[in-house]
């Protein structure tokens, strides 16, 4: 073939065009690598699934948006009676832990200080071997269990498991159980809910209703409804939290003095004789001694001199309290965060007692699972807590479930040593944290989206059981801790009548009574109408299921069950309070410390974004943590502008804070709402594992002060000095 | 270089100014059309364009005036 010049040019031109087109085409169609997996992942089918958030005791319904069966977003379930479609930052980000690169993917054993992956059967073997060796009788418990779970069912399982192991060394950090503890000590149980609808005056002792409470989402709505009726609430707290500034008034006070404030108010009520005399005579054990004690020690003037709360304010508040038709003094777990926490709670209960517990409701006539059995056992004797690991040489096996107490407790150094002395430490945490890092064996739990659980809640006044269904199949070789415990009880024959196959089975037996009594409804329809209400009262069933299996299947699918029309009766408990409950034991000694001179009180505050101390794993929340202060990924210290001026500390300058345990640097922030005697440091930063080390954990600089009864650390009884940090930023 | 080449090069350089002026005019017309599409302030757009376009045309004109003036009035034979 002969190619002449013309052809050659044509050929050249053609190939050039082809080349150009190819190149350009490729450039046009070039898809960045970051987009490719999204584009080619699948048919992109959008589905929604309902489940429950178990990150806090609130039990909000979640609506999970899934693309090709992978969860990508979480929203609130509008049909859930608890959150009615709303959801908090923690709930919104709750799916991110599923994809977290730091998740533990399989059971691990520590060999020569290094973790080695092992099979589940091997891990199970080691654990059951250890348990066999450490079974014991009630008193010299060789096994201990420290857990943190908001699911009462899981908590109960752990208690049953441990009682089978013959040990009562169980601590379960559970917001509602902790709040109930003081009631269990001096009354016949706790009221199941507060009827905000009938209350007309609330005295709030340190509770962070809308942020950290038994159900922040429910309380947010309840407080707004309460305020919409022009009712007042007053908050006593060491920091101006949202619950304090949403209140009519904020009374700044250190947590140790809640007791004094409550009893000071009682003093005025007793003097005015405006208390509920009939109730007091009948239900108050040894009322006269109580009255004598109050009148002796808690005059408003005396309270003012101790606490700094103006006597005038105490008198006004007391008169408002006694004048209201159904007032309530409210507290929750946070009242325990001080050396006299339990006495604080007793004082508040006593104050309520003076008004006959008006405003409280108690659910009656419900065939609900008996969640209280575990708590009842704490009633008479001292509950065990993790601080008792110190100096306890009996414990040979410690089990940990999601409780990162080496981060959440000021005595972490001592606890760390105690842990080192325990031959077998088993962790069920799905992540490596400060505490599980020290374990010898880790059997990681599923992520929340992979597991089955349920949360029972009565705080709204409508008993609710929110169920968490497995949204996705487990990504890794993790095991549901409930399943492990259920099969351990069976295999080791820890309980004589044990017939459960797995955790699902265990849950179902608890929920059968709910099905059997036929009341309530699933979360698959809107709030019942008046017609439906009357039908229901006439004996009709709201529910749409006809067998337990159907009930169970639908319950998982719709995210739970609730009873919109519970039988409610007024709660009039018997108070076994005597004056000894309100006086500190001499040997424990009143820890009340007052800053003198230039020293200030180091008040550690907990933000709603991180009330469990595990926020650092969550990049979204960690960033948002600094939004208020505009100090990101670092610790700041809030100081009252007046105090700061006195100490010549300028806004946003570096300061050094010195406590008995050492000193740390932070950025000072002026804030007109900080107590004059306080410096406020946020809790949540300063992790040493999880790869995200920024900021300071203020607890490691605070004194080892605990509530003597519950072992809850005090967050505000450390004296600190603050000074300008000379050597720059 | 030959005088002829030099003249051509000079002429090309000069024509750049005209290209600039013409393209700026064209650009401004385009911008005014865009402004009307986007419902922007019309009077402002038009008055700015008129001002700018005039300036560039005058500049190009002055330069051409000099160019041709210099060449026309050169000494013969130089």
């Amino acid at each position, binding site marked *: 073939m002969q190619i002449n010049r013309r052809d050659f040019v044509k050929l050249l031109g053609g190939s050039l065009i082809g080349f150009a087109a190819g190149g350009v085409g490729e450039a046009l169609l070039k898809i960045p690598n970051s987009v490719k997996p999204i584009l080619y992942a699948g048919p992109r089918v959008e589905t929604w699934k309902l489940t429950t958030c178990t990150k806090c005791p609130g039990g909000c319904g979640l609506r999970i948006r899934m693309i090709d069966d992978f969860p990508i977003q979480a929203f609130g379930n509008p049909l859930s009676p608890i959150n009615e479609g709303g959801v908090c930052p923690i709930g919104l980000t709750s799916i991110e832990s599923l994809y977290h690169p730091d998740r533990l993917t399989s059971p691990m054993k520590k060999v020569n200080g290094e973790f080695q992956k092992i099979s589940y059967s091997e891990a199970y073997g080691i654990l059951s071997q250890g348990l066999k060796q450490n079974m014991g009788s009630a008193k010299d418990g060789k096994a201990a269990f420290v857990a943190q779970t908001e699911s009462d069912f899981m908590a109960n399982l752990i208690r049953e498991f441990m009682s089978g192991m013959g040990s009562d060394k169980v601590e379960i950090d559970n917001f509602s159980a902790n709040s109930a503890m003081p009631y269990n000590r001096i009354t016949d149980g706790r009221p199941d809910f507060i009827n905000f609808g009938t209350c007309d005056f609330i005295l709030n002792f340190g509770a962070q209703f809308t942020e950290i409470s038994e159900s922040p989402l429910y309380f947010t709505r309840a407080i707004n409804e309460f305020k919409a009726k022009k009712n007042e609430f007053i908050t006593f707290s060491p920091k101006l939290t949202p619950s304090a500034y949403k209140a009519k008034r904020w009374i700044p006070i250190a947590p140790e003095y809640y007791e004094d404030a409550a009893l000071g108010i009682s003093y005025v009520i007793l003097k005015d004789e405006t208390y509920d005399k009939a109730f007091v005579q009948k239900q108050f054990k040894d009322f006269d001694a109580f009255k004598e004690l109050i009148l002796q020690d808690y005059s408003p003037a005396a309270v003012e001199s101790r606490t700094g709360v103006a006597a005038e304010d105490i008198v006004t508040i007391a008169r408002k309290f006694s004048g209201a038709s159904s007032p309530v003094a409210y507290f929750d777990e946070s009242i325990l965060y001080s050396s006299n926490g339990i006495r604080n709670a007793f004082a508040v209960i006593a104050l309520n007692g003076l008004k006959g517990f008006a405003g409280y409701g108690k659910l009656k006539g419900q065939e609900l699972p008996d969640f209280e059995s575990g708590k009842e056992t704490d009633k008479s004797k001292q509950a065990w807590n993790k601080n008792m690991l110190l100096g306890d040489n009996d414990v040979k096996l410690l089990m940990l479930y999601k409780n990162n107490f080496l981060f959440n407790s000021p005595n972490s150094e001592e606890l760390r040593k105690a842990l080192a002395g325990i031959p077998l430490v088993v962790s069920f945490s799905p992540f490596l944290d400060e505490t599980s890092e020290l374990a010898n064996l880790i059997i990681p739990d599923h992520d929340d989206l992979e597991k089955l659980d349920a949360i029972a809640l009565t705080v709204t006044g409508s008993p609710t059981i929110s169920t968490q269904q497995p949204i996705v199949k487990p990504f890794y070789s993790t095991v549901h801790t409930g399943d492990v415990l259920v099969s351990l009880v069976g295999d080791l024959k820890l309980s004589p009548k044990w017939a459960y196959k797995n955790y699902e089975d265990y849950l179902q037996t608890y929920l059968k009574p709910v099905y059997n009594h036929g009341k309530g409804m699933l979360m698959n329809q809107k709030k019942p109408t008046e017609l439906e209400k009357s039908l229901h009262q006439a004996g009709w069933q709201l529910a749409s299921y006809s067998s337990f299996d159907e009930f169970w299947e639908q319950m998982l699918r719709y995210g739970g069950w609730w009873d919109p029309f519970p039988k409610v009766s007024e709660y009039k408990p018997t108070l076994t309070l005597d004056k000894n409950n309100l006086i500190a034991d001499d040997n424990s000694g009143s820890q009340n410390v007052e800053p003198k001179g230039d020293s200030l009180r180091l008040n550690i505050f907990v933000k709603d974004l991180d009330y469990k101390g595990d926020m650092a794993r969550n990049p979204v929340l960690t960033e948002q943590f600094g939004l208020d*202060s*505009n100090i990101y990924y670092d610790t700041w210290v809030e100081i009252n502008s007046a105090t700061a001026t006195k100490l010549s500390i300028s806004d*946003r300058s570096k300061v050094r804070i010195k406590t008995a345990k050492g000193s740390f640097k932070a950025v000072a922030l002026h804030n007109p709402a900080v107590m004059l005697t306080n410096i406020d440091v946020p809790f949540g930063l300063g992790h040493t594992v999880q790869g995200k080390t920024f900021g300071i954990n203020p607890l490691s600089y605070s004194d080892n002060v605990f509530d003597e009864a519950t072992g809850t650390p005090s967050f505000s009884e450390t004296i600190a000095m603050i000074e300008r940090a000379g050597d720059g930023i | *270089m030959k005088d002829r080449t*030099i003249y051509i*090069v*000079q002429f090309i*350089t000069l024509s750049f*100014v005209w290209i*600039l002026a013409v393209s*700026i005019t064209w*650009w*401004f017309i*385009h*911008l*005014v059309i*865009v*402004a009307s599409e*986007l419902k*922007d*302030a019309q009077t*402002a*757009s038009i008055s*700015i*364009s008129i001002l*700018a376009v005039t*300036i*560039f045309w*005058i*500049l190009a004109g*002055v*330069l051409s*005036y*000099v*160019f041709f*003036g*210099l*060449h026309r*009035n*050169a*000494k013969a034979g*130089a």
Partner: protein
Amino acid sequence: MAYQNLNDEDEVLFKPIYETGRGFYVLVAILVAIFLFGLGCYIRQLILGLGVTGMDEPVTWAFYIVDFVFFIGISHAGTLISAILRLSKAEWRRPITRMAEVITGIVLAIGGLHPIIDLGRPDRILHLFERGRLQSPLLWDVTSVTAYFTASTIYLYLPLIPDIALLRDRGGKLQNFYKILAWGYQGTAKQKHTLERAISILMVMVIPIAISVHTIIAWIFSMTLQPGWHSTIFGPYFVVGAIYSGIAALLIVMIVFRKAYHFEDYLKEIHFQYLGTLLLIMSLLWTYFTFAEYLTAFYGHEPEEMRVFLYKFTGGYAPFFWLMVFCNFLLPIIILSNRKLKKLPGILVASIGVVIGMWLERLIIVIPTLANPRLPYPTGIYIPSVTEISIFAAALSAFALGFMGFSKLFPLISIWEIKEGRLQSVHEVSKRLREYLPGHPEEKQVEASVKAEI
């Protein structure tokens, strides 16, 4: 080709074009190094994004915009001053105008690039042409800077033609280059007339364009709603500042090149005295504007305005503000109103002070407003990064390089204008002066006094 001494009267003006010392090369090497470092920093910024700068929120405009305003301000040195001096027939302008015009050309090119350096997406610059919106002050700015650049380049070029012709006629290096640029100029009377006419048209045109450029830059700020920017006097205030910094920059350049190229005979003490007086006047004018600007803000006492005001007077930017007041007000007034200090070294110090002070003024206008948004966001203090500083240094060295490069191609002092002055002006001025005066003084008497003046 080596330098030939043709024993021209103004031989010293030709000399730098043909003779280059070793110091020159050393300096060029240093400047090129600085420039390349800056260029490298910019390329890094292109690749990584604007994150490499020290800008943050809310200080989203910082060094680059400050430098932009500053450089465009300096550019008023030239064309505007030379046009005004030419228009007012100030005879002492002759050795000055060229340098002034060169400053304008180079600095405009550098300054005009700064907004592009500041862009987050310089690759999308064509969007300005495709979907530009004339109602945005940024487009006004693009237009006016382009127009000013074109006009001032032409205004630099036209008076250069006779000098290029001189260079062409001397023979030697770059024959063809000069031949092309000379446009066939031979100095005939008609050619001269054509040229002069064109120059006088441009002279008139350039003044409003120059004023509009800086007014529009001021409007970029004052068209916003931000406290400290939203001010009616910003246009004239910026223009005054621009001329002020321009004169200072011109003085520095003149003093430096007088020393380097031995122009002592051309740039005499009297030129510096005159320009120094002009600098003093501009200093007072600038002070007046500054005072008026801040007094109204202070007297009005709007909370948002006051936040910016106090940030400048007592807050984070107080050191810069008071340094600016010192550099722009106290220093030039002390030096320039004192007969003993108003000598070359004094004028140099004052000029450098003014240039620094004017840069600070731009800084103080741009950043405190952004650092104090209307809503109470917590903000820190803006600290420039290495990238921004080195790009600024690169811009300065590019300016120096450009100027030095120009001096190696063309005479820095307009030779034909000097010659013209020597041949015609003495006579012309004496004639003109006679016309000013009452009665009919003797010609010789006036000529003597004119000579004394020049």
